[in-house]
């Protein structure tokens, strides 16, 4: 393993410290609970938004804390849901009279931690609700498993609830908006390589030199099927088909189209995929009117990409267009 780290155990705290040092005016960092909090939170006239999940998905979620998006993020260790205590502490820090919305990507560990945290926060008198994000079409809905995972589509849910909260919506309304956006968001990912968690020091799974893993999650867990690598045109088909047929999207729809890099794929390749996906959608009568190309939710250093579609209407468009000020700035 070759990474820019000192000690695997210090990886997350050192990253968070760097994030806070780079954004001294807008973010604060609490090393005890791994918290990244907006410097101006809480705003008592606004619903506060909290997201927590394992680390290793940066910029999700610690780097989208800021005006118009999250009020606090409580990351866990790499790929591990945060301890319940961290979530409760995050809710405490940003509690507002209008309430706190906890956003959770739907995974076993996160679900349990956030459910426990909601109970504990509630018992402390904090007005709190929880919303699960599950946009990953790679996972079949099932009575057995916990159901679909939350992956790159979480960006859109955060963006929409963040915008609604800034507009002054109450907690129920913010939840409605979040559920709505989640319900029209679908993602499918593919990995070209496995990722290497700092504490493990070697790739999480082995992929042959000519193999790809289709339907991969963002935690380095293998996907549903392994196959030979194919040209980018065909990879886009592998990703788009399950998305488009799932919602379903149809002729005349306007969408937001995201091509998300999983951490190790250069942005040049992401734009290449974007162009292919855009044209294939247009050929089906689906029009991408908002585009998102880059890294939004990664899996450490994994080479790979996911495609997300969001079905747009006027309300969702308005919320996605709203301004936001987050560390992922470029100048």
């Amino acid at each position: 393993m070759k990474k820019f780290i000192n000690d695997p155990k210090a990886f997350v705290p050192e990253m968070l410290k760097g994030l806070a040092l780079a954004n001294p005016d807008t973010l604060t960092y609490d090393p005890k609970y791994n918290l990244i909090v907006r410097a101006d939170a809480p705003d008592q006239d606004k619903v506060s938004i909290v997201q927590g999940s394992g680390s290793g998905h940066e910029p999700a979620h610690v780097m989208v804390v800021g005006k118009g998006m999250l009020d606090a993020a409580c990351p866990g260790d790499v790929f591990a849901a945060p301890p319940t205590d961290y979530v409760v502490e995050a809710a405490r820090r940003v509690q507002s009279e209008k309430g706190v919305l906890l956003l959770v990507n739907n995974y076993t560990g996160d679900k349990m931690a956030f459910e426990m945290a909601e109970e504990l926060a509630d018992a402390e008198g904090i007005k709190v609700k929880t919303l699960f994000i599950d946009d990953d079409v790679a996972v079949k809905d099932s009575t057995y498993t916990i159901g679909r995972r939350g992956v790159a589509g979480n960006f859109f849910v955060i963006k929409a609830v963040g915008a609604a909260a800034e507009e002054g919506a109450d907690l129920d309304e913010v939840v409605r908006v979040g559920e709505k956006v989640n319900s029209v968001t679908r993602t499918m990912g593919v990995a070209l390589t496995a990722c290497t968690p700092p504490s493990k020091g070697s790739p999480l799974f082995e992929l042959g030199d000519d193999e790809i893993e289709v339907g991969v999650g963002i935690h380095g867990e293998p996907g549903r099927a392994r196959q030979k690598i194919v040209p980018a045109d065909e990879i886009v088909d592998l990703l788009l088909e399950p998305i488009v047929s799932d919602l379903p999207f149809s002729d005349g729809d306007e969408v937001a189209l995201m091509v998300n890099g999983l951490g190790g794929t250069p942005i040049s390749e992401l734009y290449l995929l974007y162009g292919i996906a855009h044209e294939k959608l247009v050929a089906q009568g689906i029009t991408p009117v908002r585009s998102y190309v880059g890294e939004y939710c990664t899996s450490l250093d994994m080479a790979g990409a996911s495609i997300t579609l969001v079905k747009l209407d006027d309300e969702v468009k308005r919320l996605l267009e709203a301004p936001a000020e987050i560390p992922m700035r470029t100048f």
Partner: protein
Amino acid sequence: MSNDAPPADTNSSRLVDVVRLIAQTCVDNEAYFCDLDAVAGDGDFGYSLARGFETVLADLDQFDHDDLGAFLQKVATTMSSRMGGTSGPIWGTAFLRAAITMKGKSETTPDDTVAMLRAAIEGIKKRGGADVGDKTLLDALVPLTDAVEADVAAGTDAAGTARHGAEVARAAAEATASLQARRGRASYTGERSIGSPDPGAIAVAVLAERVADAW
């Protein structure tokens, strides 16, 4: 006690030593448990356990050792304050439920042991919605508990009971290899989860073996 375990604290109950041994074993097996989880999961199982239990180890000697219920509750909350992932809530809940059964007690009878294990199992089931056969740590913990309960009822001595429980746990844990995961992260890989044992179940077997060794 084995070499790795800290010297037995003569004022504390054997339960404290067992907890210490469990904690130390989890810390020692960090890499091994991570590797098990890398096969069909995300490779952090050992990391989560080690971070939680090293926190427990650091504070263990300061905990109240007289009221074993209070002791276990402190173990549970200490663990939970640092252990994330699925394991945080699952193991935290297990210790919390066990704590309730020991409230106010300063010694552990064989029946107490069975009661603690049963309470832990119920807590895990409630917390995670899994049951035997779903390829989780329950697939080792439940047969282990059944064996211990039967031995206790039959009057087997503690060392023999511990050894028997460890053997049953090991066999059951290895047998999870043939199961398809229906809970947790490994369930996403569908049929591909078949062929390798569940990390949580193997961890239960390893812990049971270390406890039996140390008896």
